[in-house]
């Protein structure tokens, strides 16, 4: 758990302008409360907590094939809505690479939502989970769609940063669910087929931000808000089944060569930042 990371101000290095206010501070405390509450209660009681003060938070999904698909669907809901809103906002530069990239990514995330709902037995199934309500401003800390008029350039920079965080989270989250799908080979294969699409997306979004397509150490990369560090914590691993991957070309290359998983709890904590 990286709760301390969420205590850091949502200052955004060179992206945010001076919107910091009592409202932001209040929201930060709000999120601290949510995360602390989630971490403090035993796993099985998380639902109770979320039923009173923080009703909208999602709870950790069970370590089952259904649970894996439910968590995946929630992440895909998030990505689908984010890109649809981004494309509608006018923030993404039109007529060039950026628009082509995000139209393609948006189409894939929409397909993934449809595919996963079908995989759970349809929207009438007892296993179906409904789309949460998302707040991509995280209580006003971000303005990725230029809703409050920070300007298209600043908004697009925030949109890109969030897109990178969502795609890199998706890659790690699907990886973390693989073991929960090992008893259902067809679902496992489908999840792997989505997982590699998220990785293709992540690689491209990172390039649009001027970064390498792969994650070096636990670096979130230049211009990424400190609040996104939880997406990258734990990526710096250089030991794989006893083999030191840093031996040949150093720790940077060794860590880049392997993506690390996020646990269900870690994934839920990140997703809940954007769920209201």
């Amino acid at each position, binding site marked *: 758990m990286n709760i301390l990371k969420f205590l850091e101000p949502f200052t955004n290095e060179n992206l945010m302008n001076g919107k910091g206010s009592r409202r932001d501070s209040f929201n930060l405390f709000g999120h601290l409360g949510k995360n602390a509450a989630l971490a403090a209660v035993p796993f099985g009681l998380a639902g109770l907590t979320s039923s009173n003060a923080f009703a909208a938070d999602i709870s950790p999904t069970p370590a089952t094939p259904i649970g894996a698909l439910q968590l995946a669907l929630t992440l895909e809901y998030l990505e689908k809505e984010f890109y649809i809103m981004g494309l509608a906002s006018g923030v993404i530069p039109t007529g*060039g*690479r950026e628009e*082509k*990239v995000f*139209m*393609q*990514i948006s*189409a*894939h*995330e*929409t*397909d*993934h939502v449809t*595919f996963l709902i079908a995989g759970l037995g349809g929207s009438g199934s007892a296993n179906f989970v409904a789309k949460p309500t998302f707040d991509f401003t995280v209580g006003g800390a971000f303005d990725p769609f230029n809703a409050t008029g920070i300007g298209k350039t600043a908004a697009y920079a925030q949109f890109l940063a969030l897109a990178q965080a969502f795609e890199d989270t998706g*890659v790690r989250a*699907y*990886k973390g669910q*693989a*073991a929960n799908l*090992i008893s259902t*080979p*067809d679902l*496992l*294969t*489908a999840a*792997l*087929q*989505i*997982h*590699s*699409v*998220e*990785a*293709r*997306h*992540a*690689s*491209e979004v990172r*390039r649009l931000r001027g970064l*390498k*397509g*792969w994650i070096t150490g636990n670096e979130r990369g230049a211009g990424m808000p400190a609040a996104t560090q939880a997406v990258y914590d734990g990526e710096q691993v250089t030991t*794989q*089944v*006893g*083999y*030191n*991957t840093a*031996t*040949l*070309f150093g720790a940077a*290359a*060794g860590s*880049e*060569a*392997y*993506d*690390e*998983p996020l646990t269900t709890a870690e994934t839920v904590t990140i997703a809940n930042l954007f769920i209201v």
Partner: protein
Amino acid sequence: MKNEVKINEVSSATLKGRREFLKISGLVVASTGLIMMGCNDDDNPAADDKFPGVRNGKFDLGGNDLGVLSYAYALEQLEADFYTKVVNASNFTTTFNASERQVLTDLYYHEVIHREFFKTALTGALPNPSVQLLPNLAFSYGSLNFNSRNEVLATAKALEDTGVAAYNGAGKLLTNPDYLLLAGKIVSVEARHASAIRSLINPNSADFAGDDVINTTSGLDVVKNPSEVLPIAGGFITTSFTAQFLP
């Protein structure tokens, strides 16, 4: 010069001796019953246990989890060999610009690391590695011109896309969740590579996750069985081996 690291300068003997062997072996054995079952069968590694080993005079990848990992090892040997030749080509610094060289050098690092990782992990996990470890394969690229940007990138694209499809297909063949996670850790990096190479070929496009590989209805990437992948990889691999227990 980083780019002068030759394939045979990368030591395969990364194990620090018998103690390290045992440590790695212990890690893996502790998490699977399959290997323990095979341990009393050292003298006959290619029997019904489906471990990798020589069958009918040829190396066969086998069909248990370590057979699937040997299949991955074969593909990583190919990728590592290919990028080693790419970064050591006589005109590498003029064929590719600086950012392209950065990408190709990173891919060279990553794939060599994957290859050496599999060699070490398999050596530790196989009950009788001296006869069960897939040998170092030999490769031939025919008329491929390693000083041609277009030819190198087109081949890299094929290798990376094939690697993604192969790992996506190998997942369900694995019974040990630790090995499944390991395959997952590698496949997403292969997908990041595929995306990068595709962007180098056609930057102002959706090709990084193009409609030729991502299903336009389901949004799913390609998946291939070993029997579909090995004929593709076999176009470059000159060492003969079989995969009679893999689908």
